[in-house]
């Protein structure tokens, strides 16, 4: 699965119905008693966040006497296969860590608890855009507690900008400037980008992605966007591997200083510092490129499967894990951001201390208030691949931008059924 990996966090607004005393064993959540054993499955949090997760579990068990939370951490590799196997067998753990695009097919198949029905009062505790990310568009219902979020700046290589005669302090702020600067870099045989646009990039460009329950990114603005990439590709502003690689591959090329610009997150900045010090010395950090005024956002959540035999406890734990206090603690450990409505008010996300990390963190936290998860939840891995392949055909001159986007949209709509 092609997805940015950023690690997680939670928070603590002890939830209505969960009680705050830490001694009650008769609290309720949804419909039932909060008691008994549940299993909590996370996505690759061991060993780095073992102490944190155990701390959250201990606090929950203390607050709800008679509950036991068994924690299972699955490695990132094979996570999807594990969820798929469990879902097929009807044996998903009681609380599972899933991003929206994974919760969507499970919710569509009727396997997840609808929080809008079971915990109507939970919604105000979370950022509106994060809550919406776990809704099924057009059908309503929310199928996951938003957990940790991420967004980020663009990183660019100042040294490469200088080599091409560009002002290293004026990186592109919108897609028009991106093309102009990319073409200048290409004249010096420097590639600006390491991948063709993702569906989220179409959203950032201002393309209408989804309309009337169908994909619609083949609209004129989408064609215009792809044609801009075609001009950049022809000029050599994209590396040849751009036609086949995903975000991870493009990130590696940026780290190897083979491309001049790449979107990223606070997590990446730490990676540059340790893994690519010569890049770090020349790193430029700027606001994300967008034509809409909103940045892109990525998020994870926790969902409760309907098959859980202890839904009340699972719902209470899901809400507890994602409350403001727990999320803020987690965010401070993991270069991520809380999805609760109050979590972002913590001084950690509003005050700079002069370091690059703090600058990125504060800017990203500000961005998150208006950020949008531009990847539609319906956009599956197969659809991502279809788009990538069609864009490659455009870049290679095998198809026009319009034809390729029509074909990609048709394939996505066929897969939607």
């Amino acid at each position, binding site marked *: *699965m092609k997805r940015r990996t950023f690690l997680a966090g939670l928070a603590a607004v002890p939830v209505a119905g969960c009680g705050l005393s830490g001694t009650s064993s008769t609290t309720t959540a949804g419909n039932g008693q909060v008691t008994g054993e549940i299993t909590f499955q996370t996505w690759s949090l061991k060993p780095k966040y073992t102490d944190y997760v155990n701390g959250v579990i201990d606090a929950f068990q203390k607050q709800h006497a008679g509950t036991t939370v068994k924690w299972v951490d699955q490695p990132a590799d094979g996570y*999807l296969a594990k*969820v*798929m196997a469990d*879902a*097929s067998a009807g044996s998903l753990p009681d609380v599972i860590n899933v991003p929206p695009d*994974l919760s969507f*097919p*499970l919710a569509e*198949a009727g*396997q997840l608890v609808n929080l809008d029905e079971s915990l109507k009062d939970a919604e105000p505790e979370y950022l509106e855009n994060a809550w919406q990310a776990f809704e099924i568009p057009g059908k309503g219902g929310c199928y996951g507690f938003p957990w940790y979020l991420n967004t980020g700046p663009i990183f660019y290589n100042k040294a490469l900008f200088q080599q091409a005669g560009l002002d290293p302090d004026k990186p592109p702020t919108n897609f028009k400037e991106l093309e102009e600067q990319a073409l200048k870099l290409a004249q010096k045989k420097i590639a600006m980008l390491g991948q063709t646009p993702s569906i989220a990039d179409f959203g950032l460009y201002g393309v209408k992605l989804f309309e009337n329950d169908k994909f619609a990114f083949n609209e004129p603005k989408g064609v215009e966007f792809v044609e801009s990439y075609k001009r950049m590709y022809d000029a050599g502003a994209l*590396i*040849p*591997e751009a*036609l*086949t*690689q*995903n975000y991870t*591959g493009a990130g590696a090329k940026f780290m*190897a200083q*083979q491309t001049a610009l790449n979107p990223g997150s606070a997590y990446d900045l730490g990676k540059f510092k340790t893994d690519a010090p010569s890049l770090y010395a020349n790193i430029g950090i700027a606001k994300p490129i967008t034509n809409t005024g909103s940045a892109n956002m990525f998020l994870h959540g926790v969902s409760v499967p309907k098959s859980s035999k202890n839904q009340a406890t699972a719902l209470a734990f899901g809400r507890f894990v994602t409350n403001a206090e727990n999320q803020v603690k987690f965010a401070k450990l993991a270069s991520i951001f809380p999805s609760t409505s109050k979590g972002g008010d913590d001084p950690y996300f509003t005050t700079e201390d002069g370091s690059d990390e703090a600058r990125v963190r504060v800017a990203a936290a500000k961005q998150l208030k208006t950020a949008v998860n531009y990847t539609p939840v319906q956009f*599956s*891995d*197969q659809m991502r*691949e279809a788009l*990538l*392949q*069609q864009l*490659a*055909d455009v*870049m*290679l001159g*095998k198809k026009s931008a319009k034809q390729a986007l029509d074909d990609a949209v048709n394939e996505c709509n066929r*897969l939607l059924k």
Partner: protein
Amino acid sequence: MTHRPYTPWLFLLPGLAISLLFVIFPFLNMIVLSFTDASALGGGRFTGVDNFVRMAQDPKFWVAARNSLLYMVGVVPPLVLLPLLIAMLAQKVVPGIGIFRTAFFTPVIASAVVVGLIWTWLLDSRGLVNNVVEALGGTRIGFLTDSTLLLISSMVVTIWRGLGYYMVIYLAALANVPKDLHEAAMVDGAGPIRRFWSVTVPSLRPTMVLVAALSAVNGFRVFSEIYLLSGGSGGPGGASTTMVLLIQSVGRGLTGEVGYASALSFVLFVILLGLLLVTLKLNRREDQL
């Protein structure tokens, strides 16, 4: 000693149970699913031969089938001949021959992912090979970004990985070639090349047929090499996709079309079965001549 008729079955039971559970049942299930529109989350309605009709009209299927066929044609001759030549060198008892044999066998035991990464670094547009090409005054070659070159690069990796494995098979077969045949041929004045064609090759023919059949099946089912070298994309525009890559792409994830992926798997099985039967028949016919 009393002979109990069920005793052999008791010994066979664990193996049979494992085969039944992990081979026979999934295989039968695949056949059933190929006639449904099942998704990864189960369910699925009986759709008759719809999946097969769709396959016939699906350009991706034809691209994948063509690429798998080309792959097989590309790797079988080198994998039948090169390991034989290496085995003939490796069977010589000379100082240091162990190192030689180990060197050829190492790729066989190396992880496919590690092998894929090494070759990706070598063949990348900024990789070692291209840096050498550029240093020599040439232009960079799109080993991994041109769909044809990507297929050829993957074939090279498959051949490189297979050399050691088939070499070991040939080494065992060469040890069984009667020495007196070679001695008789030498007495008759046959040189090394003549002895190779008239003594070694005929003696090894069943082994060569076996190697051809195994490498053909493995070539047609290629996955890891092309997956790793193309970053999982099947090449630009998916133009280097092979059958197994297509099956993985269609069926993977919670949104996978398991019914269609099963139909593709079923067709792959039929093609491979056909290949093996043809090989068997050819072998038998030659035996009769």
